[in-house]
């Protein structure tokens, strides 16, 4: 199916007739409809916003290094944490995973030439820069200051300009998400290559399907909430304003109806990425493929009926709290199935400690901690105590950073060679991992205790008894900031001048590795052929693997011979 061990002539293909034609670098700045270009556009754009959100986080932690509000001051602080969260969610994690990895990988993994709606895909991407421009503009004009949750009535009295900029940018981001979801569902259900049934496709595709269903159902409700909030803000209506007969809690219901599924949108693709990386770098089939696939669908369904666990203190009735508690706790079961299956995948393998694997191992460890604090948050009486405290901040960062960001880094290390044709430096990858792991835990582990001992969230000034733990946390944040440097330098340098990767440096079996690095514009030379299951490590003899490689070699030569004579560089 791909280049495999035992066939050295193809393992490191020299530049020559087997490479795709050079495409101009400035295509990344255009309205390209190629899903691979769009995927990279998403990844680079969102990484830029990750750095912006990270700078805001450093500003927040600089303020919190001492108990007094003596760095940003009270007003600017609220803008800082509001923009930090908004940017990280809507301009980094969601678009990087769905728009970046989703777009790049799904057509390749299912043997398609592009997504179902390439132009729609480009439109979805080009909604992202305006989203970012509006939020960056608010940084200079008037930042939104009511938290990324923007609860009324506070959001109606915290500055019209900032709040409306926030609303408009999220509406753009939500539109982009919805367009993408339509594209993914259609592509996955309708464009798999002949012979690839649903149960033959890589688990990343199952994850993208589940995430896209969530996006399609939930995002329009957020749009509704924000449009109504806009009317209250600008036109004097009273949907959520009690002085006019409105109800602030209705906003909370509408907001969380989207924002809870949003967290599953931010983690399901990562679950898919981990399910792809572990088999390759542990040289073992994924354990319990069907259970992992169906658990993604279970999480999708359950994710839609748990939103009010964010509202256990909002005066919601008892029966409602109990219902949402039971539904929320149930999510632990399919999630646990995945974690145990990943452990079983590692068990008995031959584990290569490349950067992608290190970040995957870090992901499992950190996400489990986040999941356990999530179990505490699922219980109504326990949640009521820790709601709106630093315990929640700890939980959300363990699942969003320890989970999603570690997963994104794992995916970047794993697929960078496919996307760019060059290898990242492994030594600096390990340095990056160690710095990230240490800085992350230093920053966020103390927050569990801070919240439990009485520190609320979203405060610029706090009781001096919390000074020591906050100091440690802020030092950790600075370590985290520094940790991005080895990655940035590594990525930029390697993209330009790193060693050539060849088609399949990891000797993996999924279809994206069965073509060149980077793939040609039409993804595959000739029609892709399905020679093996996506996780059949250890199941084929050396003779079979050599036969696969020979098949692909001849297919490619045939396709290149039929193409224009001036294809080679």
């Amino acid at each position, binding site marked *: 199916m791909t280049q495999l061990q035992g066939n050295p002539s193809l393992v490191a293909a020299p530049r020559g007739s087997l490479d795709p034609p050079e495409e101009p670098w400035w295509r990344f700045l255009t309205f390209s409809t190629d899903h691979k270009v769009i995927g990279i556009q998403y990844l680079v754009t969102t990484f830029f916003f990750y750095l912006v959100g990270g700078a805001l986080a450093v500003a927040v932690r600089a303020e919190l290094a001492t108990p007094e509000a003596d760095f940003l001051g009270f007003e600017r602080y609220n803008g800082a944490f509001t923009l930090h969260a908004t940017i990280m969610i809507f301009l980094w994690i969601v678009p990087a995973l769905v728009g970046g990895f989703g777009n790049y990988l799904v057509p390749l993994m299912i043997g398609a030439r592009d997504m179902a709606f390439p132009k729609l895909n480009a439109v979805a991407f080009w909604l992202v820069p305006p989203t970012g421009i509006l939020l960056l503009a608010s940084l200079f004009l008037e930042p939104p200051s009511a938290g990324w949750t923007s*609860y009324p009535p506070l959001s109606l009295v915290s500055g019209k300009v900032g709040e409306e900029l926030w609303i408009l940018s999220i509406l753009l981001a939500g539109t982009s998400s919805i367009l993408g979801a339509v594209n993914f569902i259609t592509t996955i259900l309708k464009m798999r290559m002949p012979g690839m049934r649903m149960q033959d496709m890589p688990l990343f595709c199952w994850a993208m399907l589940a995430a896209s269903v969530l996006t399609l159902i939930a995002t329009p409700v957020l749009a509704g909430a924000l449009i109504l909030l806009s009317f209250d803000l600008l036109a004097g209506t009273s949907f959520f304003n009690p002085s006019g007969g409105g109800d602030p809690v209705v906003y909370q219901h509408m907001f969380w109806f989207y924002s809870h599924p949003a967290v599953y949108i931010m983690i399901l693709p990562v679950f898919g990425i981990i399910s792809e990386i572990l088999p390759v770098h542990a*040289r073992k089939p994924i354990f319990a493929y069907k259970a992992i696939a169906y658990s993604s669908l279970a999480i999708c369904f359950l994710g839609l009926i748990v939103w009010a666990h964010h509202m256990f*203190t909002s005066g919601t009735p008892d029966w409602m709290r109990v219902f949402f508690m*039971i539904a929320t706790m149930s999510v632990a079961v399919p999630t646990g199935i995945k974690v145990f299956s990943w452990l079983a995948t590692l068990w008995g393998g031959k*584990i290569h400690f490349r950067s992608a694997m290190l970040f995957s191992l870090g992901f499992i460890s950190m996400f489990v901690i986040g999941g356990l604090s999530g179990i505490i948050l699922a219980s109504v009486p326990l949640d009521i105590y820790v709601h709106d405290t630093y315990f929640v901040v700890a939980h959300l960062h363990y699942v969003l950073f320890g989970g999603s960001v570690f997963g994104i880094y794992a995916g970047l290390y794993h697929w960078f060679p496919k996307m760019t044709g060059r290898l990242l430096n492994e030594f600096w990858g390990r340095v990056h991992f160690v710095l990230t792991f240490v800085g992350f835990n230093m920053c966020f582990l103390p927050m569990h205790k801070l919240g439990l001992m009485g520190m609320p969230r979203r405060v610029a000034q706090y009781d001096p008894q919390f000074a020591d733990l906050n100091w440690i946390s802020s030092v950790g944040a600075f370590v985290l900031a520094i940790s991005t440097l080895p990655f940035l330098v590594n990525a930029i340098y390697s993209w330009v001048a790193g060693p050539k990767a060849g088609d399949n440096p990891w000797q993996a079996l999924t279809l994206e590795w069965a073509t060149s690095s980077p793939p040609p514009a039409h993804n595959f030379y000739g029609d892709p052929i399905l020679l093996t299951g996506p996780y059949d490590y250890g199941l084929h003899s050396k003779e079979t693997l050599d036969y696969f490689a020979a098949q692909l070699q001849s297919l490619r030569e045939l396709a290149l011979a039929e193409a224009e004579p001036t294809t080679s560089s």
Partner: protein
Amino acid sequence: MSALSNIILVGIGVLLTLASLWYGQNHHLLPEAAANSAPLFDSLFNSTITIATGIFLVVEGVLLYCVIRYRKRRGEHGDGDPSHGNVLLEIVWTAVPALIILWLGLASIDVYQAIYGGTNVGGHMHAAMGMGSSEEAKAGEPGYAYTPVVLPGKEMGQPDLVVQVQGMQYGWLFTYESGLVTSELHLPLNRRVRLNMTALDVNHAFWVPQFRLKQDLIPGRETHLEFVPTQLGTYPIICAELCGPYHGVMATQLIVERPEDFERWQQEQLLAARGDSSALALAADSPPTHHHPPADSPAAASAFAQVHHQRLGVSPADLTSLKLHKDSVLLTRTGTG
């Protein structure tokens, strides 16, 4: 598997269990317990920590074992053992978490009913509709079917005293049945108190960590808390819902004192209030009883008073006019002036 490895496995299991049980009781993650609700919360929390520690140790232990035992060694090529499923294992690791969360869910329902049962029967829009407050809410509400007795003779829904609480940017007003309005909450020891709460401007939340209680204050509706303070002392009341730039300094104090001291304090305050309209402000800086912290300590002057006096220029006259405004616009309370 050999007998030796079975013994080792059981031994590891025992160690993990003991470690988890120990940490569940010795985590030092919570402040002191000062109300009837706290021990209920703490026992559930400790059990949950025990289970979470156990799960974490198992997952991390297996991961580290794999990383060591199944690492690719130098010179090794080829793939791992191609196993990809085991039905029994999958059933076990589906059923065990399901049982754990079943237990946690039931235990949580128990604790929730004991602490909050019947206080949250739906955020009726009393304020906006101008209805009377808690009395009408009680009659015929389904929530009051759950009345676990926490202290003898003291049942949910039958408070010894009722205090109206209003939250606003950036402090609280507490109105007692006697008509006294203060910015600090004094309560008598071992008496059941009910708080009827609302907000005057944006969302706030009333949080006392030592009582393990929290409830949002939402403009346009009334929310409630009921509890019995069981320990003398001064505890912080912290706002726990973002309410503006000064959310971080919106805090006041809850002072639990002996019932006779509480009565004496109330009488003193009422006399002072009758004599001088600026006594409303002085209620925040009332003379320390023997349960107040020393007058010159940072904890004595409530952050609320500090912020108002220093940053926002709110004078006692402003507070008086706010009280009058409140009476004319908002819901009427039983027994207040």
